[in-house]
């Protein structure tokens, strides 16, 4: 396989995070050690190449495991207790990651470790480099935020930085849960190490402004150009259809996300305005010289205050249940589209190899009549080499196509389930709010009637 380095090929999402430590071998589906920074060949997907006649091996296994683990998918992960470590611009937040599980791959029932944000990014980068080029949908890590983080570092204890930390904590938790839900990733040694080991080598290339960061940006740009020039002959209608579908879904999800963000914003406004009205109604009640009406107006003010609190709680639900989830899915869809892009790249590589092979053959044909025996031999060797590469390329392409089909199937099932669960939870929160409203107004009604 060619030694071309394509680190950005493994990264197809907004999050520009890719470990700069990965080796060129990472692009291979061979059984060799993938990268010095990852945890060796024990990762199962690596076995793929051993038996090209049975590429289903991995997934067959995984399917069974999935069945089993769905019955006993017993792993709970919580991210909690954000703690600030250090001061000034070198400060960072540390989160407690608690894993409770009965699965045998874990060494203990309950493990608690401390991790910082860059550790999560490091984990994601390793997983992306290992699996994305094979067509696995690797859940994207939460987004970086220089502004948000700076506020926290600088020590602003205000509401917005508290909210920021909570938002991030929640996002990290969702990220881990989504990662372990993937049957292959759950067994990945890097994931296990992340969850279990007390010391983790620091991921150094995660900073946005590092040399690695700049390299990523350059690669991303090159990528974009490549995307435009690769014209794949799609022989498989399924892929074309799915790609279209995901493009549509992307647009629709973004629209939905925007509407929900608008809702959160307006609901917060409503809460502020209700509180403001409550105060005003109380003052009106004080001013009112008719006793019974005065009392009723004061009661009205109290009811409105309670309703304001309801609105605040509901806004939280709006945000955490729906808005953040939608944000996650928008990023996930980008990861899915990235996986399709990987397939295109794999196809392109295969094509390139074929072109090369053709050229080598032509060169050999020419040399046949040139009477240069050692050059001829070299040409024949090269042909053999490129034939091997073409074969490998075709196998890779077949494999990634197969993987993607499965991944997409799993993704769609999970998505529907995910949304349904969240929507039900959200509706239940709405029901609760309405029931509280009924309670408050029913308590107020006799007060209104008592005005005489």
């Amino acid at each position, binding site marked *: 396989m060619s030694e071309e380095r394509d680190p950005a090929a493994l990264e197809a999402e907004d999050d520009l995070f890719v470990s700069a430590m990965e080796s060129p071998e990472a692009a291979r589906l061979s059984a060799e050690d993938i990268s010095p920074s990852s945890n060796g060949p024990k990762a199962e997907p690596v076995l793929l190449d051993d038996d090209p006649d049975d590429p289903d091996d991995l997934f067959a296994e995984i399917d069974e495991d999935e069945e089993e683990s769905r019955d006993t998918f017993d792993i709970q992960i919580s991210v909690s207790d954000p703690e600030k470590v250090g001061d000034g611009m070198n400060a960072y937040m540390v989160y407690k990651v608690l894993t409770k599980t009965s699965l045998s791959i874990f060494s203990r029932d309950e493990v608690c470790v401390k991790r910082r944000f860059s550790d999560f990014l490091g984990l994601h980068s390793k997983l992306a480099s290992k699996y994305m080029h094979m067509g696995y949908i690797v859940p994207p890590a939460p987004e970086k935020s220089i502004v948000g983080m700076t506020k926290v570092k600088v020590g602003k204890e205000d509401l917005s930085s508290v909210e920021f930390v909570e938002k991030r904590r929640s996002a990290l938790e969702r990220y881990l849960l989504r990662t372990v839900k993937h049957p292959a990733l759950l067994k990945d040694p890097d994931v296990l190490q992340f969850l279990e080991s007390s010391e983790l080598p620091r991921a150094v290339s995660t900073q946005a402004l590092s040399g690695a960061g700049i390299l990523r940006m350059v690669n991303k740009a090159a990528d974009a150009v490549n995307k435009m020039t690769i014209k794949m002959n799609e022989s498989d209608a399924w892929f074309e259809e799915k790609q279209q579908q995901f493009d549509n879904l992307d647009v629709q999800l973004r629209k*939905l996300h925007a509407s929900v963000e*608008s*809702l959160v914003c307006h609901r917060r406004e409503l809460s502020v305005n209700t509180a403001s*009205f409550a105060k005003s109604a109380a003052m009106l009640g004080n001013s009112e010289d008719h006793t019974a009406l005065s009392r009723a107006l004061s009661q009205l003010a109290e009811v409105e205050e309670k309703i304001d609190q309801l609105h605040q709680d509901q806004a939280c639900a709006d945000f955490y249940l729906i808005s953040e989830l939608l944000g996650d899915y928008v990023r996930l869809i980008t990861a899915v589209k990235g996986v399709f892009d990987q397939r295109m790249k794999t196809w392109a590589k295969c094509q390139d190899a074929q072109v090369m092979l053709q050229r080598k053959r032509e060169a050999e044909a020419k040399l046949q009549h040139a009477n240069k025996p050692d050059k001829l031999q070299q040409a024949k060797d090269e042909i053999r080499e490129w034939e091997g590469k073409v074969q490998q390329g075709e196998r890779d392409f077949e494999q990634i196509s197969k993987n993607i089909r499965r991944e997409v199937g799993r993704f769609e099932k999970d998505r529907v389930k995910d949304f*349904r669960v969240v929507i039900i939870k959200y509706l239940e929160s*709405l029901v609760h709010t309405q*029931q509280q*409203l009924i309670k408050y107004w029913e308590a107020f009604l006799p007060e209104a009637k008592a005005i005489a």
Partner: protein
Amino acid sequence: MTGPYSCCSCIVFVHSVSVDLNNDASLVIDIPDALCERDKVKFTVHTKTTLSSFQKPEYSVQRQHEDFIWLHDTIVETEEYAGLIIPPAPPKPDFEGPREKMHKLGEGESSMTKEEYAKMKQELEAEYLAVFKKTVQVHEVFLQRLSSHPMFRKDRNFQIFLEYDQDLTVRRKNAKEMFGGFFKNMVKSADEVLISGVKEVDEFFEQEKNFLLDYSSKIKDATAKAEKMTRSHKNVADDYNHISGALNNIAADNNTAFKKHLEKCAEVFEKLRVSISKVEDRMASDQELKLTELLRYYTRDIQAAKDLLYRRARALADYENSNKALDKARLKGKDVAQAEENQKQCLQKFDKLSESGKKELTSFKARRVVAFRKNLIEMTELEIKHAKNSVSLLQGSIEVLKSN
């Protein structure tokens, strides 16, 4: 219900005619119909009367908002009514909200599906209708307060307003030239200072003055805050509309193996649109009609009461000035009789204003209490109804989603 006026002016919105204001069958007024032409609203004012002062027992005339303002202004300018609380003029019909929305709808047409567009258009029409209803009723109530008041109902201009089968535009223009709205302008700038500066001997008026000044600013503030609250509520309802539309699109656009499941979801989301968005919208509307409109109306009515106090305070100032003038005349020995006459008239006017003012302010309080009670009860009952409706719809949807 205290005071000599047996009818209590309850402000009733949403439901058609204010039965209470039309207690007296000798003069019954309503606005059964109105036309909206571009910016102008043409009200059909319908009168049924048994009073001999009218030429016919029944009238139906077309009036514009400006005609109502003309009527209000002529009544304000009438010296005879100085001791009465003049029913506040109805505000100008305000279609700005729906008009803005219609504009936005037109701009966003290309980015919406046909169904979304149709739905939004429908809601926009409903909003137009709501504004329309509101303005009709506030104009109607103005006329009904006049007709139910023993003095105003006899007003000559009021009768012209109800009877005259031609356009009032010409008359209006002439009237403006005559009065020039001078009295009204004076009131606005000076009233607070003058009212609070008056040395009050009468306990009743002292209390009323303090109450009205304070209450006036509080109710203005409460109205503004209620308006903001209602607007936010409407925004939330709007957002839910967009959200369920978007959810629908996502559910509909998937021809995967889960198509049937997603079709069911689309049904549920449509129901949700009704249960969440429409209910929120109705809650916001009812809150506006019962609470915000109530506060708006009474802000204007409180102002009318303050205007009465102002007129009385000015009469008192006139009386005090006439006393001073009389003293001066007696000192100089000139024009004493004239000064005495002037003083007598000022005192008479002041006494008349005080007497009728007391009656008016007392009945005003009764009216206000009754109106607040009625509207607060109605608002609460409606909010409870909507919330209960929403709960049952939501629970239905949850059942369907869970059973899938």
